[in-house]
């Protein structure tokens, strides 16, 4: 039963072939069996999940057909959940029980989800390994000696190891797509402002984008449909209409123009490079044409991202001085302190123009560069990560680990664009390789369409780790 995709599970639930209680129990049993090897969760909410599953079954019996009624999901631990501990994987918040729900959680609850638990992440989402969690590293289900990526590493591992039907993660620059790539699952980073940030523990407020991690592309569209939309509690959410994300997902891609930039293949692991080049050939066979484009070098984007994100982190975590819950600042971990220090420096008197303002100006150049590219092409394709999953311990003592792991996704995040990771093969060692399909702002429909057509033509997403 745990093999079912979200769409399949909904069909079976609606036909009364299975109940939500059965489905939820199957996942809770799987979690009990596999979780000791993976550590994907900070909190498993067994009691609440069973209660909500029972309620979902009753609601369905009474004739309701909410879009996620009775579907067991995992939620990253930086989403506020009313009455349920929310730590952002930091010890500072080890006892924090939010008195309200994040908008994303509220929408999912209203759509009928059954939450199985809160997933592990890099503490405060500061990282790309899930190794900086104060609750222990999450392990990659494909090889438990390897990292799952991050910061939504627990979320991605929970899908790869079948510990939930689908997961909700968040991305500042890479935190959905990179762990999805390393764990061999589908991860969608919506356009900044498409999904509300209200109630999400803030990291980089001009970048943070909640989104789904799923077994396939269709499920990603189904979930985005629930998550997307303007929120009066988040003034940066877009008033533009939310389209029907499933409507055009099967469109043929004849005549689709794919942009490929050599800069995004430079320094990329040979096996990764070969698989992505193969994937592009698959899309060409399906009717797309490839156009070589020149994009602004990702190395500058890393520098821009490092300044902007650290500055926003130092400002966001400065608020912890004023909040009246959790422990004090001595509970901040090494990575959080390092980021606060750089951010504070970049914003401090005498350095603001040299670093922060300079970064904001280069941000403008990056945005214009993508705008120009999207006049010529419909989507841009690149490897999601320059490598496959690195071994446990790889991030330790590396001040720029995340930036190098996220080299190829940081530029599009800085510009607030949409993008999706889809599985595109495996290394000889059996580790997943992911392709990033980047679209313009509010390009979710085309991104999902291309990803879905590619997925239909390949079998990578059907592979499961032996665990």
């Amino acid at each position, binding site marked *: 039963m745990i093999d079912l995709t979200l769409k399949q599970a909904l069909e079976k639930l609606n036909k009364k072939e299975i109940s939500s209680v059965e489905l939820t129990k199957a996942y809770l049993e799987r979690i009990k069996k596999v979780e000791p090897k993976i550590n994907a969760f900070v909190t498993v909410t067994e009691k609440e999940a069973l209660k909500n599953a029972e309620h979902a079954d009753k609601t369905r019996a009474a004739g309701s057909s909410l879009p996620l009624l009775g579907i067991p999901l995992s939620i990253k631990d930086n989403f506020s959940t009313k009455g349920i501990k929310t730590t952002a994987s930091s010890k500072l918040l080890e*006892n*924090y*029980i939010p*008195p*309200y729900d994040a908008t994303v959680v509220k929408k999912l609850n209203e759509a009928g989800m059954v939450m199985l638990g809160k997933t592990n992440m890099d503490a405060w989402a500061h990282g790309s390994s899930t190794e900086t969690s104060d609750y222990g590293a999450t392990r990659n289900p494909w090889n438990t000696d390897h990292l799952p990526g991050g910061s939504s590493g627990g979320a991605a591992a929970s899908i790869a190891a079948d510990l939930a039907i689908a997961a909700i993660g968040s991305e500042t620059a890479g935190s959905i797509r990179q762990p999805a790539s390393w764990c061999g699952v589908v991860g969608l980073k919506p356009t*900044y*402002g498409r999904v509300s940030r209200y109630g999400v523990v803030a990291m980089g407020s*001009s970048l943070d984008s909640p989104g789904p991690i799923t077994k396939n592309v269709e499920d990603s569209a189904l979930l985005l449909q629930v998550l997307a939309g303007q929120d*009066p509690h988040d*003034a*940066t959410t*877009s*008033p533009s209409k939310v389209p029907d994300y499933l409507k055009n997902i099967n469109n043929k891609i004849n005549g689709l123009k794919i942009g490929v930039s050599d800069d995004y293949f430079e320094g990329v692991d040979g096996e990764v490079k070969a698989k992505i080049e193969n994937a592009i050939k698959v899309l060409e066979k399906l009717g797309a044409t490839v156009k070589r484009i020149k994009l602004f070098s990702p*190395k*500058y984007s*890393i*520098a*821009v991202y*490092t*300044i902007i994100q650290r500055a926003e982190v*130092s400002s966001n975590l*400065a608020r912890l*001085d004023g909040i*009246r*819950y*959790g422990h004090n*600042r*001595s509970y*901040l971990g090494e990575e959080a*302190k*390092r980021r*606060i*220090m*750089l951010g*504070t*420096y970049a914003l*401090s008197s005498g350095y603001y123009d040299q*670093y922060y*303002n*300079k*970064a*904001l*100006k*280069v*941000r*403008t*150049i990056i*945005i214009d560069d993508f705008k120009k590219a999207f006049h010529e092409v419909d989507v841009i394709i690149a490897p999601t990560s320059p490598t496959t999953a690195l071994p446990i311990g790889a991030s330790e003592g590396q*001040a*720029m680990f995340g930036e190098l792991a996220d080299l190829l996704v940081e530029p599009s995040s800085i*510009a*607030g664009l949409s993008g999706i990771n889809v599985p595109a093969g495996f290394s000889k060692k059996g580790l997943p390789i992911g392709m990033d399909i980047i679209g313009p*702002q509010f390009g979710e429909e085309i991104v999902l369409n291309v990803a879905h057509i590619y997925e239909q033509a390949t079998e990578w997403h059907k592979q499961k780790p032996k665990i």
Partner: protein
Amino acid sequence: MKIDVKHIATLANLTLNDDEIELYGSQLDSTLEYIEQLNEVDTKNVEPTSQVTGLENVLREDIAAESLTQEQALSNNSETHNGLFKVKGILDND
């Protein structure tokens, strides 16, 4: 070392020990070295971008809505007094 680590730690309200001061000092220096690559980019006549949505002056109706109760607002706090937050004094007595 380019950064006065102790000064920045004071600004950031972080208490660092000597080992941390040394560690962050060298790591921040190397990070700054990387960042300085941005000097290669010509930004003359380029306006800064602080947010990407293009939205400006987002307003809403000022309508009173349900909010947290006093009990909920205090629910995560260990130091309360008469239903209020207990905080440290911000002014010196002398």
